[in-house]
């Protein structure tokens, strides 16, 4: 039977120089939750609070009913975290760093490090000093360290940064399997690649949660439709850029993905919105307060 883990956020308030993170109530469950929002919306701060790197100034976060302040060693033993930017100890080899961090987390079995090296395809570079490795290889080591103690709660801040397309697919596939019985929260900017992986979405805007729910619900009830197709260059120039989700030059035309209530031009068809479309549309509404768009 699938074990359902839960993190509960209650009336959390945390001051930052440019905004205040203010979350009245939120629940995180087993599966992959994407944390989305513009830069400076409070995603990283929320991840730091969840991973216990910071303690909230007000309110509380409980992990399976346990509050971090009173069960810190236990809760921290069940947390894996990858910050968005990290400079690993360059003088160490990948293997030595992973062994060091594993022991720090209380994992002494050599097989734990061996397995994670194999899972993240680091065997070839395990004995190389980290400073000699590429950015993508270093990122894989950063991801690998977060999984050393097989934590129940995994928090990833832009986990796919610096990885190539193949590595990104592999990591997402790995996380989907991993999240079956664990909570994985990933702060992401590129949503399309998570389309099939995400279970839930939390959208933060200026430190508050604007949406929290299933990935399917995230794409439903949007005030605008998504229109796709090819238009002529002249028609493309006439389309307002602030509603353009995506465009790509084609042979003698331009392929566009556009948000509007009605078809904005000939040759465009209504499409099912993706996670990223939904984000763009919701952001458009917030930015423009353009209620007429929604009719």
């Amino acid at each position, binding site marked *: 039977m699938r074990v359902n883990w839960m993190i509960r956020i209650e009336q959390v308030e945390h001051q930052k120089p440019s905004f205040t993170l203010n979350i009245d109530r939120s*629940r995180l469950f087993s599966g992959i939750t994407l944390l989305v929002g513009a830069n400076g919306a409070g995603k990283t701060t929320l991840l730091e609070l969840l991973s*216990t790197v910071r303690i909230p100034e007000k309110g509380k976060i409980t992990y399976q009913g346990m509050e971090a302040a009173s069960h810190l060693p236990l809760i921290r*033993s069940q947390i894996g975290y990858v910050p968005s930017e*990290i400079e690993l100890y360059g003088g160490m080899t990948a293997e030595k760093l992973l062994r060091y961090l594993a022991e720090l987390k*209380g994992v002494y079995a050599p097989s734990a490090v061996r397995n994670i090296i194999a899972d993240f395809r680091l065997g070839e570079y395990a004995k190389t000093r980290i400073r000699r490795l590429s950015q993508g290889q270093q990122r894989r080591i950063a991801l690998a360290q977060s999984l050393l*103690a097989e934590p129940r709660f995994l928090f990833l801040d832009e986990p796919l940064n610096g990885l190539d397309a193949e590595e990104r697919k592999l990591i997402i596939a790995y996380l989907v399997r991993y999240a079956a019985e664990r909570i994985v929260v990933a702060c992401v900017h590129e949503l399309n690649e998570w389309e099939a992986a995400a279970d839930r979405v939390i959208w933060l805007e200026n430190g508050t949660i604007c949406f929290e729910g299933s990935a399917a619900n995230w794409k439903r009830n949007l005030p605008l439709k998504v229109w796709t197709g090819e238009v002529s260059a002249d028609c493309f120039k006439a389309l307002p850029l602030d509603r353009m989700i995506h465009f790509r030059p084609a042979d003698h035309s331009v392929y566009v993905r556009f948000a509007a209530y009605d078809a904005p031009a000939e040759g465009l068809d209504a499409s099912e919105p993706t996670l990223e479309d939904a984000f763009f549309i919701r952001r458009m509404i917030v930015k423009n307060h353009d209620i007429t768009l929604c009719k």
Partner: protein
Amino acid sequence: MNHPVDNELKVLEAQLRDPIRRALELPPSPEETALLLGALQPEFDQLREKASGKALTFNPEVKPPSLGRLLSNQFRLNHKALMLSGAAVFLMLVLLIDPKAGIDSMSPLLPASLFSLITPLMLMASILFSYRTWDPGMRMIESITPYPPFLVLFSRMITVIALIVGWAGLSSLIMGIRIWIAGEDARLPFGPFLLEWLGITLLTAGIIMELLFRKGIGTAIGGAAVLYVLWILFGMMGPEHVTFQIRLAAEAAMMAAGALLLLGSYSRSRKIIAMGV
């Protein structure tokens, strides 16, 4: 008067009103279903909340945290570099000092023995080298362990301090033996000699730990450097100002103060649960 057929029609109409309305009603559209599902999301979440009943425990492969394990882990982080550099420096010190001339043979013009001058410097350099955690990302990762984050740092630093003091103690012993073998003319006043380097070294360590947890590594090393300079100035004061007994008492006080600061920082390191990053 109503015709019986009219009455029957009325009854029939009343009986069929509801089934006909239901038959004519359109099934919900996908949008309406989606809307309903969306509206029910909080209720689904509540059901999941109730279903999450399993207690959180340590994973079986995770050994419970212990100070011994932490010290061993932190020692192994830097031990090769520190063992080699410590061995080289203290071996050089032992070899530089002529046993027949005694501990002041290399430093007749210096305010203290070479040992007392070099050991705190070696300590500062080693702490700076082994601090490592310059990067906020690494600092965060190292703080998410079953141990309080400052205890991890404390353990790292205390292993460095123990290593340097250990090397200095071992070298003092070797030097004492060399001087003892060399003959009766040159004697090493072992107690005062130990007190001389141990006093300044422990106080340097204590100041570094105290400032490290409050103000960061830069201020900690800066504070230790100021202490070192003040101590040299103190050493330059001649016997007409500072008698041998006063000097001994001052060194004993420095040693005690250093040990107290180290104990205080240990106690604080256990209490701070999150690291400022």
